[in-house]
């Protein structure tokens, strides 16, 4: 075996062409068969060539010298100082034309600097900045103070080759179980858009690959499911009904009659049968009975009324003495009296609160003038000039004129429009009796789209007139219709039960 030093000597001699003809022949014979030798020779030649690039080396040396003599101050944004000379030009114009740059002094370096400035924020630039030796040096300096031993377990972690291998294997496995065909390809297949070559490949795979069959099925089913608009609508409708409707099969009146013990035998048996299983009905019944019990507490109501009167009287009485009596803050009697006063005041506030919930307040809360909607009548009433004019007046809240104009509209099968807006106008003018008469005409007509509203507004008129029983009757009719005002009507009925007669 040839020692390494001797071998290197021979290679060097060969590369520098210092071997005689025989030695060269021998060397070349060996070179032809020995791969290791070939590599060594190549390396030597490369080193030799690199060393021989004297001009490059000289240039590198000069540059290093210049760098040492003129340390570069990198500006904050990473541009060269050369760019600063461009300030004058940039002041003249925000964007420079290429000609302007060429014509300027030292144009080519400036073109470079200009472009450099423009691209300073680009990622690629940042990338090269990161490669900058200065930064790397800085990072190394930062690491200087840190001992690797400080990272407990780092060495052990690096040495856990089995774990590292397992992680790689798992990645590979995960990759292998990923769907081989994308959503796009499966879709294209289902839509018959796959090219012939891919289609053949896809179908071959589909035949033997259960996962792919599953994916394709899922896509196809999804398509069907999404197209089921009707099912989705029906589901929504059912959801709304379940959320908004009561789940009992008896009317409000039946529940009230049951509580009052007025249900006839057949109805009672039916009611009891449902009550046995319908938990919602049980809850409703319990609530109504509790309300009745609360209303039945006449002693409490009397006390409340007394407190109300006391409050009114105290408001009427003049303050006779302007000199405040002397209080002994240490006296227990004073404190007892004060506490008693506070309790009475709280009671008075409660009574005041109850009074707020009177029929009048309820009316104000619920009455809202609707806008004109004559188009709900059966025939085309819009052509009627008087109705047009009345609509205008109504929109301007000029209710007296609205009534006068509507009065001129002749009676016909669509008169409910006329009566409805006349009623609303009267109601806005606080002429509730007249409004009730007009609403009754609309309701009696029996076949129009204003009936529910007429019943609603009529009940509010009764409320304003403090005719609670009449109001309740109308509200019950509104509830039975199960329309837009059902919830409000229920709320008012409950309020009426709580408010004193």
């Amino acid at each position: 075996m040839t020692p390494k030093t001797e071998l290197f000597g021979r290679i060097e001699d060969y590369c520098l062409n210092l071997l005689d003809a025989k030695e060269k022949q021998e060397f070349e014979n060996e070179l032809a068969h020995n791969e290791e030798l070939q590599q060594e020779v190549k390396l030597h030649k490369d080193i030799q060539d690199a060393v021989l690039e004297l001009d490059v080396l000289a240039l590198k040396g000069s540059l290093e010298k210049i760098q040492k003599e003129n340390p570069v101050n990198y500006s904050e944004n990473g541009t060269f100082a050369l760019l600063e000379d461009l300030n004058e030009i940039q002041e003249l114009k925000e964007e420079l034309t290429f000609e302007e740059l060429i014509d300027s002094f030292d144009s080519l370096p400036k073109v470079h600097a200009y472009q450099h400035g423009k691209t300073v924020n680009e990622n690629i630039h940042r990338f090269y900045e990161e490669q900058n030796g200065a930064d790397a040096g800085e990072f190394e300096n930062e690491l200087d103070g840190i001992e690797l031993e400080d990272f407990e377990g780092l060495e052990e972690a690096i040495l856990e080759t089995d774990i590292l291998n397992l992680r790689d294997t798992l990645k590979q496995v995960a990759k292998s179980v990923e769907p081989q065909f994308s959503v796009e390809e499966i879709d294209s297949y289902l839509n018959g858009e796959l090219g012939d070559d891919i289609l053949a490949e896809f179908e071959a795979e589909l035949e033997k690959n259960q996962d792919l069959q599953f994916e394709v099925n899922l896509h196809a089913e999804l398509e069907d499911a999404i197209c089921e608009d009707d099912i989705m609508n029906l589901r929504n409708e059912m959801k709304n009904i379940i959320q908004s409707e009561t789940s009992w099969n008896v009317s409000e009146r039946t529940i009230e009659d049951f509580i009052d013990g007025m249900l006839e035998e057949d109805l009672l048996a039916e009611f009891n049968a449902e009550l046995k299983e319908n938990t919602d009905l049980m809850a409703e019944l319990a609530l109504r009975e509790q309300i009745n019990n609360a209303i039945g507490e006449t002693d409490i109501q009397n006390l409340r009324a007394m407190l109300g009167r006391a409050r009114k009287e105290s408001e009427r009485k003049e303050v006779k003495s302007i000199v405040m009596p002397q209080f002994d803050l240490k006296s227990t009697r004073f404190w007892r009296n004060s506490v008693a006063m506070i309790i009475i005041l709280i009671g008075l506030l409660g009574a005041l609160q109850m009074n707020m919930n009177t029929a009048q307040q309820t009316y104000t809360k619920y009455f809202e003038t609707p806008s004109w909607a004559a188009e709900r009548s059966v025939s085309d009433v819009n052509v009627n000039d008087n109705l047009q004019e009345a609509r205008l007046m109504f929109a301007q809240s000029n209710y007296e004129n609205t009534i006068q104009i509507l009065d001129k509209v002749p009676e016909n099968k669509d008169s409910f429009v006329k009566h409805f807006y006349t009623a609303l106008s009267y109601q806005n003018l606080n002429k509730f009796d007249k409004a009730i008469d007009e609403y009754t005409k609309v309701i009696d007509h029996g076949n129009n789209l204003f009936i529910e509203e007429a019943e609603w507004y009529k009940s509010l008129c009764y409320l304003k007139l403090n005719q609670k029983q009449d109001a309740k009757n109308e509200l019950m009719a509104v509830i039975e219709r199960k329309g837009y005002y059902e919830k409000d009507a229920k709320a008012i009925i409950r309020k009426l039960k709580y408010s004193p007669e």
Partner: protein
Amino acid sequence: MISYTDAQILKGILRHDNLILQYIYKQYYYKVNYFIKKNQGSEDDASDIFQEAIIVIYRKLKENDLIFEKSSFQGYLFSVCRLLWLKQLEKRRIEKERLNDSLPYQEDVYDDNLIELVEKNEKYGLYQKHFKTLSSDCQKLLQMFFEKVPLKEIARIMGYKTEKYAKTRKFKCKELLIKRIKQDTEFKKILEDDT
């Protein structure tokens, strides 16, 4: 209260008649609710089961596959509700043997077609639930694609510059939908049932 014949009820379901649906709810829901609560279910379970039973009946009607020979609408509805709840109990690994059978059901209703339809309804219901969780844009886009609206028209309606973008967006939406479905534990249970 007005009562409807079975034929009127079925027609009402077919045209999604709100009055009829309300009638069905008021007439029968409490019994289903009672049955489910007696058998380890909740109020929410009851409303879900009731709703899905109506959907199953609607699917049957659409396929012209609903004729009451021995049964009535009420019997059929209760039988479907019972079947749906039994399936739920099975999924929840709850013993079915101790069932408190308060619902008057009919055994002959349970044929293979109904079982198959119930399974389809369950699967499709899940897909539709996730579809509804997508952005409205995604929903609209997918729906138009599946209804075979031309790509150019879709791009115009959705305000996309190119047809290619519409297609890419569609794939993104569908990918998201499929991901959500696959992540759903209910879906995994359905798959277990299938196998």
